């Protein structure tokens, strides 16, 4: 009995709904109360203040400054090591890997392309400050401040040297990653760097299963191959490399003049120590000159080929954008390819937007992707081409030197230098 009366009520309700559709959502007018009832008001807590983020900025500056002091004045690997641990604890576990200079690339790019988006000032500082430090002191940020770099660095127990050509080739992935990340952020599709941060699951002690596995594997590789994410993937590292090439100060392996004892030759687990070059024999010189010529000609070819590859991939890449995905789905439903619906397609049909409008929007996004993908591809091609050219130039070097671009300022090589040991002994004798 009760049920059927309820049914009647529901019929009435449905009727009311139809009326409601005409008069707006208010189907039952809010009552007038006789009993002096006080209506509660909604309490909405305000957005969190980001004071903590400014503390983060202060810590970042402090860590980078301390790094410079430890690398250039103290020349202390031990100090760097403890600083690394500190960064892992603070930026990694305590701040759960978020706010991070690498991920800030996405925010900066989005704020440039999307007028409605504003990057928090702290985020901007996290992006800019390491760049400035790098221009002055080399990769002081990578040495200890970056929790991603630090966690890889401290697990490096059994370093295996990679052949130079292999390391150089793998590094191209970082350029590609940077290009993809910028493309995805610029089109408002995704913050790729944050989503695929390999260590975030470790810092947060849990999360997406795939990322936990990826993080674990990456750490395992890092036991043998020095800082694999830094060297072969990190998009921020790509920027830092270039700035570090012209930095004011640079890491020197020896505190004084290099005596070419060769003791530090294999000290760097990241392959960042350059050996003195011998003069090329006349024959070699000619061969290399020819190779240089070929490589210079190859540069535009690479740019075009990679640009074209970008063009071919742009269709697939554009599916990262929600509008394109939705349009694809609606198209599949309209053309009868699929006969079920998804939450997204149902929601779309409820919005009252016409399908033509949706297709129009998707086409606009796709156009951006075509342009962006070609550009991204061309840039990767350019990076590859320049790398080839650099490899066929004879660089004149008379000493063992830390590579300006590749050195993370980790300080491992210092103690291999006999002159450094003399210095340390003198120091301890003075005491």
């Amino acid at each position, binding site marked *: 009995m*009760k*049920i059927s009366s*309820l049914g009647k*009520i*529901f019929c009435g*309700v*449905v009727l009311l*709904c139809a009326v409601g559709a005409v008069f707006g*959502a*208010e*189907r*039952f007018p*809010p*009552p007038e*109360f*006789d*009993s002096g*009832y006080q*209506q*509660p008001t*909604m309490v*909405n*807590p*305000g*957005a*969190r203040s*980001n004071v903590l983020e400014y503390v983060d900025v202060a810590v970042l500056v402090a860590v980078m400054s301390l790094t410079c002091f430890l690398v250039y004045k103290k020349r202390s690997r031990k100090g760097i090591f403890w600083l690394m641990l500190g960064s892992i604890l603070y930026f990694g576990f305590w701040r759960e890997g*978020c706010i991070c200079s690498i*991920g800030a690339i996405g*925010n*900066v790019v989005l*704020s*440039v392309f999307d*007028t409605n*988006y*504003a*990057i*928090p*000032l702290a985020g*901007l500082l996290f*992006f*800019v400050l390491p*760049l*400035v430090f790098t*221009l002055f002191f080399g990769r002081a940020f990578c040495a200890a401040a970056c929790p991603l770099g630090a966690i890889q660095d401290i697990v490096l127990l059994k370093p295996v040297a990679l052949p130079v050509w292999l390391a150089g080739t793998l590094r191209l992935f970082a350029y590609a990653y940077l290009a993809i990340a910028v493309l995805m952020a610029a089109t408002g599709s*995704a*913050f790729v760097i*944050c*989503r695929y941060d390999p260590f975030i699951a470790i810092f*947060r002690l849990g999360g997406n299963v795939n990322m936990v596995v990826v993080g674990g594997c990456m750490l395992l590789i890092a036991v043998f191959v020095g800082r694999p994410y830094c060297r072969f993937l990190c998009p921020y590292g790509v920027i830092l490399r270039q700035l570090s090439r*012209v*930095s*004011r100060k640079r890491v020197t392996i020896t505190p004084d003049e290099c005596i070419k004892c060769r003791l530090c030759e294999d000290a760097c687990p990241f392959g960042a120590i350059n050996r003195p070059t011998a003069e090329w024999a006349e024959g070699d010189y000619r061969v290399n000159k020819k190779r240089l010529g070929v490589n210079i000609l190859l540069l535009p070819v690479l740019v075009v080929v990679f640009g074209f590859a970008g063009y071919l991939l742009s269709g697939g890449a554009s599916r990262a954008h*929600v509008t394109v995905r939705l349009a694809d789905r609606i198209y599949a439903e309209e053309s009868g390819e699929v006969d079920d619906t998804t*939450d*997204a397609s*149902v*929601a779309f049909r*409820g*919005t009252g937007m016409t399908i033509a409008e949706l297709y129009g929007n998707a086409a606009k996004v796709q156009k951006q992707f075509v342009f962006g993908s070609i550009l991204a591809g061309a840039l990767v091609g350019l990076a590859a081409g320049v790398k080839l050219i650099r490899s066929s130039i004879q660089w004149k070097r008379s000493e063992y030197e830390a590579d300006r671009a590749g050195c993370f300022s980790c300080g491992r090589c210092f103690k291999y230098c006999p002159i450094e040991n003399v210095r340390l002994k003198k120091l301890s004798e003075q005491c």
Partner: protein
Amino acid sequence: MADKDKNVSRRNFLREGVWGALLGGVGIGGGVVAVKSAKGDTVWQIDPDKCTQCGNCATYCVLEESAVKCVHAHELCGYCDLCTGYLEPEPPGLDTGAENELCPTGAIKRKFVEDPYYEYHIEEPLCIGCGKCVKGCGAFGNGSLYLQVRHDRCLNCNECAIAVACPSEAFKRVPASDPYILKGEH
């Protein structure tokens, strides 16, 4: 020898130039972005007009217990006896027994006001943001129940995990100074 010196100084000059240009570039670029972003920070919020109560809000948040909760705009509520946000569509009975309630955690509390009106109140700590009540209220009632990101809980992730999973593009960034999209106001 002089030639070599010239080479070196030329190279140094080039290096200085590039260095200055890069520093300037970083400074100017950073400045432009800073000025562009001066209008203030943003936070995530749900547009209640777009939300379709798919249920993702309860499960996709990076927090164990979602930052999204149901809120109740009492000024829009009809205070109905037969609240379709409170009761199962075809409840076994019409009393407040748990088997009749729509909310899986019993987070909605019902209080008699005066005949025939009842007040509905959300115990926020119990709400998991599943949106079941919102769906019921929106389908047959006034739509006074709706989901909002609660900013005392939300971490304001760089890329909100629910926003990525939301099928109706209901999540958007709103100014931190005005962090809610309240019904009846917009």
